[in-house]
């Protein structure tokens, strides 16, 4: 039991856990103490003095150790001066006055001082309307200044801190929130204060500038308009914006977000997304999102989106009506029957996937998930159980991250795993190369490519690591396919599952297996019954293929070839991808931002998203398109609201049993309190009023005992003497279908580059930053050369989704650029 402390704040009796700060105790009791530098997610700094209050403690008689009484009441010893509520911890019998005359005078003076060097350019400031300085000045400020306007401090107003964030030095009130966020929360201390006193200013000296994938969060917690995003700055006024609750669809974390939208003349009278803001879900993303989630939303409004159905006539894809296109697609699928194949990507919602699965079942066709990460069936069995929260992990717990670069693949998981390690959890990182997580790990285990499975199998035999796994209070295992293909990743998953099962870490909260999928809803696809195909090219042969939300031809020339050799190809997409260009029928899909639906995150949490903007051109939602095809085949598929599809899904798929849209929309009070009225406290992050989501029941929690999966014997490909082995790795900012339309990210996406060991480079006469020609899978590509001493000699890291054909470890030749 946590010890409780009772104190009085403005005459109200408040009971809070020992160790609580006065400012938080007040907040919990519904009393606002104004703050600028304090933020409930970070240790206090006591820098701004905005939170001044009168503070008294019961006077203690030194001789007896008893409180001194006065008229039967404890006598209060008042602090001689005002105290900061953000640095003082509560104690029993403490008396706090936040609105006394003295306290108010102190608060007023601090604001008067702050405003002496503030430009007060609210009318043109992006923060205006949601600015803590503006709001607190109205509530606590003096109304009038005794300082001379002409002696205001002036500083640079348009300072780019990298391509994503701009700094207005004049507006900065030196609260240090951004600096502390980067150091304490993000673990990337690339902002700091330069100079002193009035000349204090924020600087970044990293290369590239403000080198952090969490930089956007500083604009949420900056209490003034000093930090703004390049994306939103001068874009709109906060009060013109509508908000729609949604989820980030860029990775399997499932961060809760809010899309702010506006109808504007600038966009031809369309309603468009103006910015992405985090939405609080303390069990998923707390109040943060990564920069990919914040800035890669522009695909929705891209003019390159497919507008209407296309049908191939005389060898050319030509516009057609929905009737024609659906009829043709249905006829082709009908003719194929069980020789049809449905290939779906993890960008689709649970509802879309369910309809696709029903269609496949109706035809007797195979339903294939397009992914390079395997093992989702294991996650279904021993994935995370309800009640899991990464924030609960700490001392005595262990987190294993295998064949995965969490930083690039799932940033918010990286952040939360790092924080668990900071709290004392034992972090074990197992990979063929160094990643950003190593710095925070208790144990780093490196294997030679090909040895990933045996290495994982051997972990329990290692003294300390074995003990850390076996004796862990809670054990979480993240895995992916770093340097591997689907087969490699499947065996890694099996080896990881064995570790969990053998040591009994499953079927309860905060224990289990997490697949770090390439998309937001791969786990949902596994749950619904989609399975990847180890040899996709062979599986496509002679089939009538219905592909939704996947671009195999763009990823891999061999798959493009296989599709050319397949029977009919029907493609349902947002864009005219390489795969769509091979199709007979192209069905334009609505983006997830334009409709409702649910995703199942890698943690197996099912969450809802809501429509943010109207559907683009003639597009239709994926589940509707599938249902309309199904209906033409005499199948009873739901084309009504997604909630209706979801009802059918929950009736059929056991893991989803008992869920409903209403249940997914339930909320509970969360700490810290954030939202519009409290933005001085938590920042501009949105309060969650639309649903925290629900974990799927893991088969193991329901009492089913998991079977120990068989682990593939033998090993994956190894580098050979005198030849380089290209291994696929994931890059956060890549050329993915939903990323490349965001021009702002161009510099971070960069040119395709391979990474090799300096010795390998030397042998080949290559230098860092030079261009080279690589031969891979029978194709030649120009790339940049990067060096990394931590990767094994003989291996070249080749990024996925950067236009290089790398879907599996494969031999690579490197030559000088032409």
């Amino acid at each position, binding site marked *: 039991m946590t010890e409780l402390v009772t104190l009085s704040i403005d005459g109200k009796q408040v009971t809070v856990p020992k160790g609580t700060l006065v400012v938080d105790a007040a907040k919990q009791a519904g009393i606002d103490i104004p703050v600028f530098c304090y933020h409930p997610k970070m240790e206090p700094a006591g820098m701004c003095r905005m939170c001044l209050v009168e503070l008294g403690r019961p006077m203690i008689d030194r001789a007896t150790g008893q409180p001194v009484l006065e008229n039967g009441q404890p006598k209060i010893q008042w602090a001689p001066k005002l105290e900061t509520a953000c640095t003082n911890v509560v104690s029993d019998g403490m008396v706090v006055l936040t609105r006394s005359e003295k306290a108010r005078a102190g608060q007023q003076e601090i604001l008067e001082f702050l405003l002496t060097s503030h430009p007060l350019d609210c009318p043109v400031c992006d923060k205006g309307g949601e600015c803590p300085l503006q709001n607190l000045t109205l509530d606590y400020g003096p109304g009038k200044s005794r300082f001379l306007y002409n002696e205001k401090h002036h500083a640079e107003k348009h300072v780019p801190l990298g391509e994503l964030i701009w700094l207005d030095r004049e507006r900065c009130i030196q609260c240090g929130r951004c600096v502390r966020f980067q150091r304490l929360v993000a673990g990337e201390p*690339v*902002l700091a204060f330069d100079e002193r006193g009035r000349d204090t200013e924020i*600087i970044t*000296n*990293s290369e590239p500038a403000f080198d952090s994938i969490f930089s956007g969060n500083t604009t949420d917690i900056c209490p003034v308009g000093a930090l703004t995003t390049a994306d939103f700055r001068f874009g709109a006024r906060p009060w013109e914006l509508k908000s729609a609750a949604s989820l980030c669809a860029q990775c399997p974390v499932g961060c809760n977000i809010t899309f702010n939208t506006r109808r504007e003349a600038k966009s031809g009278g369309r309603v468009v997304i103006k910015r992405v803001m985090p939405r609080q879900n303390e069990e998923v993303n707390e109040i943060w999102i990564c920069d990919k989630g914040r800035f890669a939303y522009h695909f929705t409004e891209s003019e390159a989106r497919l507008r209407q159905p296309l049908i191939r006539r005389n060898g050319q894809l030509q516009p057609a009506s929905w009737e024609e296109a659906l009829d043709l697609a249905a006829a082709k699928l009908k003719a194929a029957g069980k020789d049809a194949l449905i290939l779906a990507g993890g960008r689709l919602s649970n509802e879309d996937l369910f309809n696709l699965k029903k269609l496949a079942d109706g035809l007797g066709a195979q339903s294939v998930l397009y992914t390079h990460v395997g093992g989702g069936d294991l996650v279904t069995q021993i994935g995370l159980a309800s009640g899991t929260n990464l924030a609960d992990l700490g001392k005595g717990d262990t987190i294993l991250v295998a064949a995965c670069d969490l930083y690039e693949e799932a940033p918010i998981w990286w952040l939360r795993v790092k924080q668990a390690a900071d709290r004392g959890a034992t972090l074990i990182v197992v990979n063929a190369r160094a990643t950003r997580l190593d710095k925070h790990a208790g144990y780093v285990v490196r294997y030679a490519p090909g040895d990933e499975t045996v290495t994982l199998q051997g972990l329990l035999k290692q003294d300390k690591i074995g003990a850390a796994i076996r004796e862990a209070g809670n054990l979480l295992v993240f895995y992916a396919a770093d340097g591997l293909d689907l087969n490699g990743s499947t065996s890694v998953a099996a080896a990881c599952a064995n570790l969990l099962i053998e040591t009994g870490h499953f079927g309860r909260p905060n224990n289990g297996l997490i697949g770090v999928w390439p998309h937001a809803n791969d786990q949902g696809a596994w749950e619904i019954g989609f399975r990847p195909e180890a040899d996709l090219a062979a599986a496509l042969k002679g089939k009538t293929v219905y592909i939704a939300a996947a671009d195999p031809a763009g990823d891999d020339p061999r798959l493009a070839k296989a599709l050319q050799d397949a029977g009919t190809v029907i493609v349902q997409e947002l864009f005219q991808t390489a795969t769509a260009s091979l199709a007979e029928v192209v069905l334009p899909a609505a983006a997830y931002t334009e409709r409702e639906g649910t995703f199942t995150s890698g943690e197996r949490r099912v969450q809802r998203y809501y429509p943010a903007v109207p559907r683009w051109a003639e597009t239709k939602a994926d589940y509707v398109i599938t249902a309309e095809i199904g209906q033409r085949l005499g199948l009873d598929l739901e084309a009504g609201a997604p909630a209706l599809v979801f009802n059918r899904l929950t009736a059929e798929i056991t893991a989803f049993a008992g869920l409903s849209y209403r249940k997914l929309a339930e909320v509970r009070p969360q700490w810290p309190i954030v939202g519009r009225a409290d933005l001085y406290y938590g920042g501009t992050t949105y309060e969650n009023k639309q649903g925290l989501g629900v974990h799927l029941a893991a088969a193991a929690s329901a009492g089913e005992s998991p079977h120990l999966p068989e682990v593939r014997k033998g090993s994956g490909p190894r580098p050979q003497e005198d030849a380089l082995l290209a291994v696929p790795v994931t890059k956060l900012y890549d050329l993915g279908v939903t990323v490349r339309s965001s021009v702002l990210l161009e510099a971070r996406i960069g040119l395709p580059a391979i990474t090799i060991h300096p010795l390998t480079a030397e042998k080949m006469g290559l230098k860092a930053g030079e261009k080279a020609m690589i031969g891979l899978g029978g194709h030649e590509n120009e790339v940049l050369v990067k060096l990394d001493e931590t990767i094994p000699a003989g291996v070249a890291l080749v990024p996925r989704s950067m236009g290089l054909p790398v879907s599996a470890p494969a031999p690579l030749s490197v030559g000088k650029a032409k």
Partner: protein
Amino acid sequence: MSLAEKYPEEIKRILAKYPPEHKRSALMPLLYLAQREKGYVDNHAMNEIAEMLEITPTEVAAMIGFYTLYHGEPAGKLRIQVCVDLPCALRGADKFLADLCANLGIEPGGTTADGLVTVEPVMCLAACDKAPVFQTQGPDGIAYHENMTVEKTMQLVEALRESGKEVK
């Protein structure tokens, strides 16, 4: 040439003074070492020190920015750092600074055309009772000059100018 190549022994000695898990504590002595080169710490040196101590270049720059004794920008051979904090201001430091600069033909913070002298206003030098006061920072180290007048200061500058000639 990198610092590591130029001063391997001295760097080793400095680093040895701190436990490896707190090696960032070696930042200040390493900055003095780097500054010895050109009178300021250039970008190369900042990055090199950051790498040595496993901190970010931003953190190194912040340290240089915080202390008036470190410099991130080139300046004159001799830096005259005049205290203009409140107690000194009460003893005329503001006027002293303005007059000195006028005599040298520069703005506060500026450098004389011959690259000899830079005059900078700084915060309290802990000699408030002896204002006007400044500290000089140059190749010969740091020195205090208390109860100064513009005349005495100009003599100092002249002497330096002369000696500069002699050296040449």
